[in-house]
């Protein structure tokens, strides 16, 4: 097919559907343009930029909600009472507003000529990302991070990064993988350096840029290796091309094809590991987070991880298939990821212990959590490498991989709330005390009622990060540990990884509870007055902290777990 034919076909068949699916990204891009226009003609003095950004992201969020509704069930199964009718009406109204049709967004499949993939996984990840965007925007409104002058710049960067992240969740092509990761990275560099007056901030941004550029280069090289070797950059053709390239040879590390593939994948993983802040590509993370404002650090720690995990899932499943050699490759990659995860969590937890700056400590904590989360992907790879009827017996390895991905999705959902709460609390404390070290938290509980509520919310978040029931973090960890345990039957190395993960849970107690000790037990320093946080801050904290609890001890858990399973099944079936 020539390029002209391809274009013709695209315009006549695929374009409308693609644009419908792409609607959240388009809305965000339009908001960015609007923000800049408003600034140019001076409207931003009357309507603050934050409200325009918030309205735009809410619209994008609603667009994804409609997509999800169409995606979920062909006939919108709603209860036939008033609420069902109201929801159905609202969805139809919104659909008409955004020009979304059931044929367009309701059918999963590749779009933009196969560059991108539309399925439940992508829709759900976008929903989560846009929810996070809305929450982060509200947080910046509460804490007053960008002032009137710079509002438009800041929100432009934030929304621009989110567009990249939304795209990353649906990548189906090596080029799009690279583009989307760069698209989310470049605005992040600027956002980290956003506190212009502070040297530390600029230094952090510079470090971030240098690391980012380096890893992007390595990634690009790996990408070209893979594309050159397989003659395609389309994910779903990799497995078949690999088998063809092996040409019936047995899988061994002396085979050129295997070495090239492993090298290419490893180099690509460098770029991904950089965004996930996995050891040994984590060095930028503590510095960048310390220099950036807490709101930006919180946003980056969650959003770029979630988006890249979405891309990683797609990339990882591209290397699975039926055939002896591809199975062995998958197994290699899975065990390698598990080892990286174990190293990540151990180093993150140990390094966090010595930190005195809250943001730095939380940065190491996110490194550790990336380690836990990548274990789910590792388990999924190991399951995919199992031949049916092997060591797992009557259990279906494919079903087990669905469960592993379910664990990852659940973890990300809880992580959104618990990590955002932790960083939001840092921002609130900074606004009151102008400090961000652990000592600033001393005796926080002696403040007014609203401050006490924030303290309790922070406690819930930290306890959930450790993984103490009845909080969401525990159930998420339980799901991932379970998958690793079962995967241990296929590859006993994973049992060792499970032991390390268990040990890490205990170690992590120390540094989280150093903060809790300061907040609840230590007295306020002599010269400091008790804090008086405003009620709206407490309300925000309660809204963020409540899901942490609900996702760990309520029937809502069952709903999320089922949804996550359905989503992860869409990746495999």
């Amino acid at each position, binding site marked *: 097919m020539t390029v002209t034919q391809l274009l013709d076909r695209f315009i006549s068949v695929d374009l409308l559907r693609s644009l419908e699916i792409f609607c959240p990204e388009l809305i965000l891009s339009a908001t960015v343009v609007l923000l800049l226009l408003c600034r140019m003609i001076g409207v931003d003095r009357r309507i603050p930029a934050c409200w325009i950004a918030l309205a735009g992201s809410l619209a994008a969020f609603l667009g994804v909600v409609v997509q999800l509704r169409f995606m979920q069930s062909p006939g919108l199964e709603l209860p036939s009472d008033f609420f069902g009718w109201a929801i159905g009406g609202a969805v139809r109204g919104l659909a008409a507003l955004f020009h979304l049709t059931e044929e367009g967004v309701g059918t999963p499949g590749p779009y933009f000529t196969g560059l991108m993939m539309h399925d439940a996984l992508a829709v759900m990840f976008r929903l989560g990302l846009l929810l996070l965007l809305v929450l982060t925007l509200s947080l910046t409104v509460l804490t007053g991070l960008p002032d009137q002058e710079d509002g438009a710049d800041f929100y432009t960067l934030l929304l621009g990064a989110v567009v990249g992240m939304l795209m990353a969740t649906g990548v189906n092509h090596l080029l799009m993988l690279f583009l989307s990761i760069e698209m989310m990275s470049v605005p992040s560099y600027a956002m980290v350096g956003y506190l212009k007056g502070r040297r530390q901030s600029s230094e952090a941004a510079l470090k971030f840029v240098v690391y980012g550029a380096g890893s992007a280069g390595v990634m690009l090289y790996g990408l070209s290796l893979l594309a050159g070797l397989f003659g395609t950059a389309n994910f779903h053709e990799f497995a078949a091309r690999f088998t063809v390239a092996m040409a019936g040879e047995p899988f061994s590390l002396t085979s050129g094809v295997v070495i090239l593939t492993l090298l290419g994948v490893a180099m690509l993983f460098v770029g991904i590991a950089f965004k996930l802040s996995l050891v040994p590509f984590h060095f930028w993370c503590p510095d960048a987070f310390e220099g950036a404002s807490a709101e930006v650090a919180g946003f980056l720690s969650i959003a770029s991880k979630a988006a890249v995990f979405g891309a990683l899932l797609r990339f990882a499943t591209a290397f699975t298939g039926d055939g002896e050699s591809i199975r062995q490759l998958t197994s290699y990659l899975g065990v390698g990821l598990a080892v990286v995860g174990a190293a990540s969590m151990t180093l993150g937890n140990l390094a966090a212990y010595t930190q005195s700056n809250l943001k730095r400590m939380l940065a190491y904590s996110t490194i550790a959590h990336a380690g836990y989360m990548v274990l789910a992907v590792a388990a999924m790879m190991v399951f995919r490498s199992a031949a049916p009827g092997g060591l797992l*017996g009557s259990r279906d390895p494919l079903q087990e991989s669905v*469960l592993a991905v379910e664990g990852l999705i659940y973890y990300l959902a809880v992580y959104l709330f618990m990590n955002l709460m932790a960083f939001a609390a840092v921002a609130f404390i900074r606004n009151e005390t102008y400090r961000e070290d652990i000592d600033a938290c001393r005796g926080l509980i002696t403040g007014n009622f609203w401050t006490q509520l924030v303290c309790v919310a922070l406690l819930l978040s930290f306890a959930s990060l450790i993984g103490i029931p009845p909080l969401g973090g525990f159930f998420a960890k339980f799901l991932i540990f379970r998958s690793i345990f079962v995967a241990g039957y296929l590859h006993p190395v994973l049992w060792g990884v499970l032991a390390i993960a268990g040990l890490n849970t205990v170690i992590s107690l120390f540094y989280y509870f150093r903060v809790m*000790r300061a907040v609840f037990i230590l007295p306020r320093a002599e010269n400091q007055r008790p804090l008086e946080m405003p009620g709206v801050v407490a309300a925000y904290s309660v809204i963020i902290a409540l899901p942490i609890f609900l996702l760990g001890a309520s029937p809502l858990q069952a709903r999320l777990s089922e949804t996550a399973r359905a989503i992860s099944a869409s990746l495999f079936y």
Partner: protein
Amino acid sequence: MNNDLALLSWTIFLPTAAAAVLGVGFRDENPNSIRAMRWFTAGVTFVTMILSFLIYQRFDPAQAGMQLVSVKSWIPSWNVEYRLGVDGISMPLILLTTVITFLSALASWSITRQVRGYMILFLLLETGMLGVFMALDFFLFYVFWEVMLLPMYFLIGIWGGPRREYAAIKFFLYTLAGGVLMLIAMLMFYFNSGNNFNLVELAEMARAGTVFSREMQIIAFVLLFIGFAIKLPSFPFHTWLPDAHVEAPTPISMILAGVLLKMGGYGILRIAMPLCPYGTQVAAYALVAIGAFSIIYGAFAALAQTDFKRLVAYSSVSHMGYVLIGMAVWKIGEGGELIGRDYWNMGINGAMFQMLAHGVSSAGMFFMVGVVYDRVHHRDLNQFGGLMQKMPLYSGFAIVLFFAGLGLPGLCGFIGEVFVVLSSWNYSPLLAIIAASGVILTAAYILWTIQRVYLGPEYRGPHPEALSEMNEREFSVAFTLSALAVVLGIVPNTMFRLMENTTDQLTRTMQQGYEATREEPAVELSLTQESPFPALPNR
């Protein structure tokens, strides 16, 4: 059926609801509202106690299995259920929990700062404890087990003594480590049973003997045992206990000693033993030996203390050793047949009774230490003496409770120890002699303590002017505990009646499970064996 669900759930969650009311309802801390909060908490714990009596009323001791079982679906995609129930092992412990909690709520008047936070955490703690004793789902059990961590950490860490932070984090760390081991054991059972968390069904699979292989049972038992032994606490894992008990405020020490330690024993009886009969049998001798060693070690350590509270804490280590012995005196012959099932039954009953008796006597002892500490603000045994003259009523009750701890016939401590020692003779005369000789050491440290604190010519320590007699509130707590010690000592059958049938069934099923597992050929079952149950349905 629905009624049972409501009754059990209300018993568990009434304190949580009350904690929420406290959190929102009582904002400021003036003397009036502090008084109101104290009475409110005491009232809530009292109502919870009444609810537990209602459970007792519905409970039929003649039946052996689970009663009042009530189920509600929680996470169906993972087979996790909200499943509650009561049997002869948990019923007495539920009663103990609500009674001790009510009494410690009455003892909480000594807390004077941040009263609201204290009361909230105290009530959350009660929810966790009751939940552990009623949960029949492994996942739910684990959740309740860990729910207690946070309240306990803060109760010790904020309202404790000088080294409170160290003690609190040590307690947290030990229990969390035990919890992680339990989690891994839980995953093993979950996978091997075909995604089942139901403790009754898991025990039934263990009885049938074809599901859990021998290696798996041994590994799981060791993991579970370490998790529970930390809580019990038994010898190598006990070091958190003296710190936590000493630093905790009096009412929390009462709860720690009176209820929390019992959860270790309960966990072994409810989970570790029925789920791994083969593992239990393999480890039985080690358990009895650890128990005997704990008795002697705890008693010697108690003898060496000069801190009154530390002495009582080490006496707990010593007393809980009997619990471990009593549970594990499972003697088998060459062919795997059970020798002397009545002795084993007696041992388990004795262990259960010892838990109850220790719950009463050690909570009482901690309360008595607290009463005098509130007055003179020190706990140095060498500076006491002559309290009998100044506070005769207090000293009288204290001596009753200390003698109950000593195991004087006619008081509660005697029954449990005698049952355990008698049953262990059948198992191993050597260990029985060691365990019995612990009684002499116990007598030594208790009598020496009484001599140093209550007898003697006059009190020469600091603050002699503060030594006033107990007030009505303290009197009622001391009286209730002493009365319980006497009643349990004279008519132990009130409690044995409840547990007999259940222990009988427990020993029977465990023997069946052991024999079935023992006969399985080794090749067919290994750790990497597939589960005979199908995987989760795809959704």
